[in-house]
């Protein structure tokens, strides 16, 4: 470990500089590819145009929240997708509210 501590890691901003394939996203979420495809089919994740269906980096956060909701609360993919959309809307509205104060 001592050698590692002197090394400086340079990463990328996921949401701005990274796109993920369906397989990379399923790996990052530790679920099967089918579970990710299901979220795409429900419109929670929107792949970019192109044959390999790459997803923007913000898909990781959306997918992870949706999968946690499915696991912890027993909602299905459709319900989880709705919740994620609504949560983002709440975030947006709260940010607007704060900026008006």
């Amino acid at each position: 470990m001592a050698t590692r501590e002197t090394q400086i890691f340079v990463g990328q901003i996921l949401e701005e500089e990274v796109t993920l394939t369906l397989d990379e996203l399923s790996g990052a979420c530790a679920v099967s590819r089918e579970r990710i495809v299901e979220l795409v089919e429900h419109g929670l994740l929107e792949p970019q145009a192109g044959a390999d269906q790459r997803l923007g980096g913000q898909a990781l956060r959306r997918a992870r929240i949706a999968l946690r909701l499915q696991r912890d609360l027993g909602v299905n993919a459709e319900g989880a997708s709705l919740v994620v959309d609504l949560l983002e809307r709440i975030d947006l509205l709260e940010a607007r509210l704060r900026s008006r104060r």
Partner: protein
Amino acid sequence: MQFKDYYAIMGVPREATAEQIKQAYRKLARKYHPDVSKEAGAEQRFKEVGEAYEVLRDPQKRAAYDQLGKGPQPGEEFRPPPDWGSGFEFRGASAGDQGFAFEGDPSEFFETLFGRAGFGAAGTRAHHGHGAARDRGEDHHARVTIDLDAALEGATRALTLRVPAVDEEGRPHLRDRTLNVRIPKGIQAGQHIRLAGQGSQPGGAGKPGDLYLEVQFAPHRLYRPEGRDLLLDLPVAPWEAALGATVTVPTPAGAVELKIPADSRGGTRLRLKGRGMPADPPGDLYATLQIALPPADSQSAREAYRALAAAIAFDPRAGFGG
């Protein structure tokens, strides 16, 4: 060790039916789910509720737990009875696959009674990728709190992560790992830094997984970040707000002169375009005027206030009506 009253945590009577327990769990899980709730301590509550449900949903564990009675008197230490667990078959057997499993550790109380392996499917399901993920190592996720200055400057910070590891005897535990990470300039709260290849190394010749760091900011002395924008409270003297002034304002890229228009009110927001987070495109900096009242702590200050009162017919409570 602290005794946990799982019935009290779930808010159900000791004679509650399995159906009532399930309903109570669902309600509380929705209420305290860390992705949904903004309440402080929601995550802790969610874990407690999850642990309580893990015991009460399983007839074997529940029966064994019920034998403990209501626990010791408040303040007394709890110790499991010597014959604890005899006749029950929950050790090592997971409660099945449906429902609940969360990331994190059970309480000491739970672990003493039921062992770590009895803790739902956590640690097994969460850590085994399927299909495509199998030929490469697991990806790791961690949340890190950094100072805003690191993101404003693009500085390097030593981040300590707690990562799951397995000891020589195969027992899982958490290990501290310190990484020096260049914080990407302009990264915003809630965004992730991806460090390729810094996840788990798979057994065999597979590719290592990636490490994702979700960024949060510690409170900053001056700025409050809102996405790309920065908010700054700008104290001004009453005469600066009333007469207008040019004041020096700190911004991440260096101090600038800001013109305060005459007759400004407290709470007015002035925008400094492009002076927020140094992202691409850069955010804006919003300075909110805070009118600071000079203390009337000297003879001359008191006289100045009296002169002001005499000079201006001003009723700050005019809006209250008569």
